[in-house]
């Protein structure tokens, strides 16, 4: 058993690797707390003082403070929760369990004491999670293990596997070669590990270790049992989270209540995460009456850069809480309302919320107070849940709600998931914008561990974290999952969790982003273990974008080997075929072809390349195709402007007229500067263009438009202005002429001389006449254009 130690020789001593990186500070504190009970109490006080009571704190304005202090003590429920703040929840201050038993939800973790890790080693192997607290990093290609596989193995022993070597890393496992074929000693991870003095292990050593660990596991069934026994015996000692719950064991038998409800936060402190936001909500509601009814607006600069910053809009009559599902938005609204003595009126998506139906009851209640049985007057609080769900059926609902908010005499809290939804744009302007974030993994796992302990379910922290992760940090869902698990089991380890999750997890695809999905598809390490269904699901994350992402990135993911070029060609073929399918789908609305599209445009190229890419690049296609559209428009505009003077289709114009006319215009300007302007304008004019079109269209449409733009920039500003000026005089005179001509209804041929002067004096007579007809046309064209504008 002691063997294991040898893999964590010297470096560990100073590293103190027990705690996983991210959460280590908190955990450390926890561990300390659990071992030394005394330290805990001051902490609680700190927490509570921080939480509660900004209202009571001297900082708050005296007006509010007084009103707040009146409210708060009157609320029994609220005053109670002062006791256990989240972080220390699992250890009740009231019923003190024996400190030593405390640690047990990570039962056999090495002793937390930093100074003498050596004294503890024997406890390590006795656990089912002998690597608890160790952090591993894997580098290079391992011959016998797939990276994910190994990660799972290590995790199942309780270790943490991270991506980068840091001071906290306990051990670096390396393969002989890096992914790009260099020797592992050249890798950065290896170098860092050497610098840090981290334990470095090659594959052989690793296998030994794993064998040892497996051997230990088998040899220690007794430990396992005794561990469970300890777990069970402890159970009653735990204090349930729910303060009103008196006895956890009793509640265990009481199956009628779901855990989600049973452990629903009853006080502000109970709410997990979003402490600041909840506090803000509490403050807003506390001061609501003062601000809205008595008009003592808070002096807050809610404008940033000239625009109303809704997140600072504390004087609003309504609050808008937004955030992903399962983070406790509704709960927060209820709890806050309750603590501040409000009677809560809730409307959610299950209610019909058309304009009329919102206006009537809300308008009525928004001016009312309600009376309770014992005669006390309760203030009302309206909670509009799921406001982003107000849709077709609730026509006019949002506007009605805004109307109500404008005139309300009671506070209104609106709750939604999608803050960015267009439906909320107008509503948000009348609200105090509060955004809830997902609480992080460690926050949740701490709370859940406590709950699990009180429910008598022993669970490995690693397993718990994986479940939390798989539900996307959704507390509600995780709790439901665990409850389901607890109906049939009383413990859970990493492997069980992993297995179980395949059946019960939240659809993991919903948590994968477009880019991640594309990256996965282009990585054979990831896709190898996946079923076809899973791969196609990755495609369905975004069936528009994924094919484009694949197309953009597959070339970067081709491994170098003899098959490279062939694979590349086949992948390109497949993508091209995908394009055909896509066309069919779009033109015939034949959406049944989508899976085939996924196969051709995502899975197949992914499988043919599959070397993985660090991060997918955004498809160039979008930018290029919009440039193309723009240029197409420019060519068309150019063609319709010049239509009377030239022949040829778009391509001819683009590749022949555009460069030549551009050269003809630029030449005199570059050569003679100001003196060349007239000549240039003449050309512009002859072809029915104008200086703006020259600047925009002709220059943009040059094949090397950057070069032409630069060339144009070099022209002195004065000259550019002159172009416009000269053009305008010519243009205006011809405009006048045309009008006159129309009035007099003269023969068209007579109106020329003036014009010819403008154009050019040196022209040969014959040419002049040949051109007459054309020249006359131009002003006409212009008038039409002008009118249009």
């Amino acid at each position: 058993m002691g063997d294991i130690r040898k893999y964590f020789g010297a470096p560990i001593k100073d590293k103190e690797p027990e705690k996983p990186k991210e959460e280590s500070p908190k955990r450390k504190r926890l561990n300390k707390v659990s071992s030394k009970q005394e330290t805990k109490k001051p902490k609680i006080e700190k927490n509570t003082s921080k939480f509660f009571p900004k209202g009571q704190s001297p900082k708050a304005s005296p007006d509010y403070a007084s009103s707040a202090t009146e409210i708060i003590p009157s609320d029994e429920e609220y005053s109670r929760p002062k006791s256990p703040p989240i972080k220390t929840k699992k250890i009740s201050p009231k019923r003190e369990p024996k400190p030593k038993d405390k640690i047990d939800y990570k039962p056999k973790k090495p002793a937390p004491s930093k100074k003498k890790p050596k004294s503890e080693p024997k406890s390590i192997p006795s656990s089912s999670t002998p690597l608890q607290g160790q952090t591993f990093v894997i580098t290079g290609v391992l011959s016998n293990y797939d990276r994910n596989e190994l990660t799972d193995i290590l995790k199942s022993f309780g270790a943490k596997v991270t991506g980068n070597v840091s001071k906290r890393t306990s051990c670096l496992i390396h393969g002989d070669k890096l992914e790009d074929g260099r020797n592992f000693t050249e890798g950065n991870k290896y170098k860092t590990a050497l610098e840090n003095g981290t334990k470095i292990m090659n594959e052989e050593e690793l296998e030994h270790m794993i064998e040892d660990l497996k051997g230990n596991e088998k040899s220690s069934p007794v430990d396992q049992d005794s561990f469970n026994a300890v777990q069970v015996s402890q159970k009653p000692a735990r204090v349930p989270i729910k303060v009103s719950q008196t006895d956890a064991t009793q509640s265990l038998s009481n199956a009628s209540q779901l855990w989600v409800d049973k452990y629903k936060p009853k006080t502000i402190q109970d709410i997990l995460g979003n402490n600041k936001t909840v506090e803000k909500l509490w403050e807003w509601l506390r001061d609501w009456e003062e601000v809205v009814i008595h008009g003592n607006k808070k002096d807050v600069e809610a404008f940033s850069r000239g625009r109303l910053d809704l997140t600072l809009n504390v004087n609003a009559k309504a609050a808008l809480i937004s955030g992903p599902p399962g983070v406790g938005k509704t709960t927060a609204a209820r709890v806050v309302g309750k603590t501040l003595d409000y009677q809560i009126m809730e409307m959610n998506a299950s209610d019909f919320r058309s304009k009329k139906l919102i206006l009537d009851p809300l308008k009525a209640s928004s001016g009312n107070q309600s009376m309770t049985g014992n005669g006390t007057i309760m203030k009302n609080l309206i909670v509009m849940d799921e406001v982003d769900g107000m849709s077709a059926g609730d026509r006019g609902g949002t506007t009605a709600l805004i109307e109500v908010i404008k005139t309300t005499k009671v506070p209104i809290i609106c709750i939604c998931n999608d803050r960015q939804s267009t439906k909320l744009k107008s509503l948000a302007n009348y609200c105090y914008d509060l955004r809830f974030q997902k609480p992080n993994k460690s926050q949740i796992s701490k709370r859940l561990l406590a709950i699990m302990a009180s429910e008598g379910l022993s669970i490995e922290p690693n397993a718990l974290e994986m479940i939390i992760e798989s539900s996307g940090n959704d507390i509600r869902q995780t709790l439901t999952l665990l409850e389901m698990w607890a109906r049939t089991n009383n413990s859970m380890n990493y492997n069980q969790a992993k297995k179980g999750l395949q059946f019960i997890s939240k659809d993991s695809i919903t948590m994968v982003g477009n880019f991640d999905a594309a990256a996965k598809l282009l990585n054979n390490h990831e896709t190898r273990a996946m079923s076809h269904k899973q791969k196609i699901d990755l495609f369905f994350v975004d069936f528009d974008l994924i094919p484009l992402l694949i197309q953009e990135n597959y070339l970067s993911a081709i491994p170098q080997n003899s098959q490279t070029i062939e694979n590349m060609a086949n992948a390109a073929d497949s993508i091209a075929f995908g394009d055909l399918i896509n066309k069919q789908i779009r033109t015939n609305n034949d959406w049944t072809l989508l899976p085939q599209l996924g196969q051709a445009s995502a899975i197949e190229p992914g499988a043919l390349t599959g070397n993985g890419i660090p991060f997918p690049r955004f498809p160039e296609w979008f930018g290029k195709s919009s440039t193309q559209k723009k240029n197409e428009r420019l060519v068309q505009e150019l063609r319709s402007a010049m239509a009377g003077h030239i022949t040829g289709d778009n391509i001819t114009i683009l590749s022949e007229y555009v460069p030549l006319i551009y050269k003809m215009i630029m030449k005199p300007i570059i050569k003679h500067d100001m003196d060349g302007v007239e000549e240039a304008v003449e050309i512009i004019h002859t072809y029915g263009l104008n200086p703006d079109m020259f600047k925009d269209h002709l220059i943009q449409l040059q094949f090397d438009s950057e070069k032409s733009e630069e060339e144009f920039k070099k022209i002195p500003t004065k000259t550019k202005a002159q172009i416009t000026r000269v053009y305008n005089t010519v243009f205006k005179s011809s405009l006048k002429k045309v009008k006159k001509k129309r009035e007099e209804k003269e023969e068209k041929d007579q109106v020329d001389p003036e014009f010819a002067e403008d154009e050019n004096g040196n022209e040969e007579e014959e040419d002049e006449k040949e051109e007459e007809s054309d020249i006359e046309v131009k002003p006409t064209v212009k008038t039409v254009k002008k009118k249009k504008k």
Partner: protein
Amino acid sequence: MASKLWVDKYRPLTVDQLDYHSTLSAILERLSTSGDLPHLLFYGPSGAGKKTRVLALLNGVFGAGVNKVKCEVRNFKAGTVNVEISILQSNYHIDMTPSDVAHRDKIVVQQIIKEIGSSKNPDQRFFKVVILNQADYLTDEAQAALRRTLEKYTATTRVILICNSLCRVIAPLRSRCLSIRVPAPSADDMRKVLRKIASSENLELPMSLENKLINASNRNIRRAIMMMQTVYIQNSRLNPDASVPIPEWEKYLKEIATNVLDEQTPKSLKIVRGKLYEVLASCIPPTTVFNTLCKELVTRSDAAIKTVVVRHAADYELQMKSGSKPIVHLEAFLARFMSVYKQHSNRMNY
């Protein structure tokens, strides 16, 4: 100095000014003097003189009035969407390119012809002419719509279709029109025209430059004249040693071909893709890109794989036409070419 490009400045305006295809000119002459016109379908390669001949014909029928045109933007309602198209109008004819509005061209075609068909021409002539450019780019629906309209409004309207290739015009439409082929001018024809222009400009056209122009322009008279003028602008004379300017995008495509031939790796394909995007973004039609690339690659690769490459190019181009993103097909073609080329050169090395 003249403000017009030579191509436009020396464009023949009447049938008897036309420089080449004298038999065709004779037919046009007869048509214009007969006082009536059938529906016409002009086809031939770009730069052969189709439009010039159409306008010359109309000039013969209606007189110089057809050259007094004004430009107008018209709106059509198609269900809920507004279709906007700019048309060129004289008292006698309407000139437009329905394919500008892509798949909504049907509405334009129907509406315009109905509109003209139901109004009387103020002139003594009893019909008005509608010129439809790029008729081969009309959608099938639009072409189908034309069939009936052509017959229905014969009393007041004549349609002249202009297109490059007959094959994309549906047969029923072809049978309703008198098809007139305007072939590309021969080298001698072009020589004549170029010399005429040069002498009108009081310039001397050296033989060597003349030959270069004729070769490089691919029997496209418009391009030849424009090239000549470009040479003139760049050198202020028709320099016999001047290199003939080829379009920038063509140079760029040659560069792409060089890249492909130099290095057959994913990295190289990635670079090439970036360049292809550039070409496509500047509105060079993908088909043209395909043709140019294929020609370039075939001429520069070994005889043994030439046929394979051409076959692939044809396959991928066909595929592209039924797809929606040309870039992926171009890319697939080049990837396939790389594969073929590499395999071949590996084999050669053994």
